């Protein structure tokens, strides 16, 4: 009787009962902590928005006639600068690649008021802490003749839309 009690209390490290109990313990722990972890992850899934309520990323900015040749029009609410040279059109971001401030037009291109980054006319970095050039966004001509910009699609700098 006493021996049996000892065995079932797990003192026999070679006994099958001990390892089975240990195994069950591990499984229980894994189940509990696994569920807790999954719950935590699901909270993050919950707070990650599926739809955003801000500005749309794809929008039209008007007809090509609104931007005569030589225009460099900063559309601040949209966060882009529309550049037209002859029959070539482009949309350059005016959100600083350093820390997200809005860059302004400067004599040599763009300048950021927050941390002093400077860019040339094409958005290449010419000074300051900005790590990347200002991105260029895809620009297309919609069937109704309006210029459409898609800020979700970045294109190589220097690739214009030719009218």
């Amino acid at each position: 009787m006493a021996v049996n009690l000892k065995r079932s209390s797990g003192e026999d490290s070679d006994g099958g009962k001990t390892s089975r109990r240990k195994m069950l313990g591990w499984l229980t722990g894994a189940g509990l902590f696994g569920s807790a972890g999954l719950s935590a992850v699901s909270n993050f899934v919950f707070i990650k928005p599926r739809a955003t309520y801000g500005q749309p990323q794809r929008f039209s900015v008007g007809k090509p006639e609104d931007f005569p040749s030589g225009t460099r029009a900063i559309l601040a609410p949209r966060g882009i600068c529309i550049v037209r040279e002859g029959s070539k059109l482009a949309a350059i971001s005016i959100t600083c690649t350093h820390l997200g401030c809005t860059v302004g037009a400067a004599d040599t291109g763009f300048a950021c008021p927050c941390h002093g980054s400077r860019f040339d006319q094409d958005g290449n970095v010419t000074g300051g802490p900005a790590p990347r050039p200002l991105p260029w966004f895809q620009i297309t001509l919609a069937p109704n003749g309006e210029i459409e910009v898609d800020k979700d699609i970045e294109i190589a700098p220097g690739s214009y839309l030719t009218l």
Partner: protein
Amino acid sequence: MSRPTPPKATFLTTLMDLPKNVWSSIFRNPLPSNDLERSATSFTNFFLHIHPVKVHKNSLRPTYTFGLGLISFFLFLILTVSGILLMFYYVPSTQQAYDRMLDLRGSVAFGTLLRNMHRWSAHGMVAIVFLHLCRVFLTGSYKKPREFNWVVGVILFLLTLFMSFTGYLLPWDQLAFWAITVGTAIAGYAPIIGKDIQFLLMGGTSVGQEALLRFYVLHVAVLPAILTLMIAIHFWRIRKDGGLSRPEDADPKVSLEAMENAVTPKGSVPEPKKLYGFQGLVRGPLTKVGQIPDNTVFSWPNLFLAELFTFVVTLSAILVLSLLFNAPLEEPVNALHPPNPAKAPWYFLGLQEMVSYSAFWGGIGVPGIFVLLLLGTPYLDRGPKGVGKWFSRDRLLANTIFITFVVANIIFVIIGTFFRGANWAFVTPW
């Protein structure tokens, strides 16, 4: 009828005794006049029972702690009360938030005063929590057995910064908007998960209504809850780790023999009922309290008066500051035109200055290494010497490294505050 009757408990006497009975049902002890009552007061009062019955004289030395931990806690209390009051008038909406700030100033009784108190206490808490961290480091108080409480303290410091950061956006003025635009962009530089953190914080791709709501929820619910829990753990562990740190020679030398004598019943004299039995059990099997010489005094009144004094001084200082200086409020948000220069709050200006050299190293790399070093300090510095003394020579290396980091950060803060002008160009303030 000839026998004298005992005084009858009439309804009148019941009524007359009512205040006394109510009082004694709440406060079971009279104001202490002897040691037994002094210890019982610490036990039986909910608000006092987190204190020890007796406290070491070293813990009460003003020049040892400067009361920095207590001041931090009292500032947190002031912030909680003033913050809850401000919530009655605040709306986390981009349409209304700024107008509500103006309402606080113009049409709410004590509105300006409460906002000032909240703002200056917040600045004060960041500063005092940091000084508290410096005190604990420079006295070597993070050493065994207080390693984990140091870690909790570092987490509390980070939470304080995050509290301040989330509160910064709520007035929805230019300062708020651009500081948070820059701050969330810094988070975006964190490796792998940076962009996700930035998106989660802002609830979108730019700082707007979603970001304001998220920062509000973090500021008034999530972070205060975590902070309160961590403060509770921090306080609980102070007790469990044996009170505040003190130098080894702070306790009188007691021989083992004297200790044993102290707990051996002497002859047939019955032992008095041990009042502090459980306190003794916490540290070991011997009930030695009161039997051997020590350098402790009763918490009532020594500790409690010191705490009351600290509280009154803290509250008075905040009140005077709030009456003299108004919390700044800039122009309402104009997402199209960042102010030039756009500056973060002063305690983040060191960070912003470093960020102007390199966004990753200034915003994530160097601060990350600093935080990891802070968290790891008690596990890297295992030498037992130099605990409980300011600038102990036994800890020369650790203190030198720490002070170098602190001074470097202060220099960056000063440069960022006074020497940076338009386009973050170097300017001289005079």
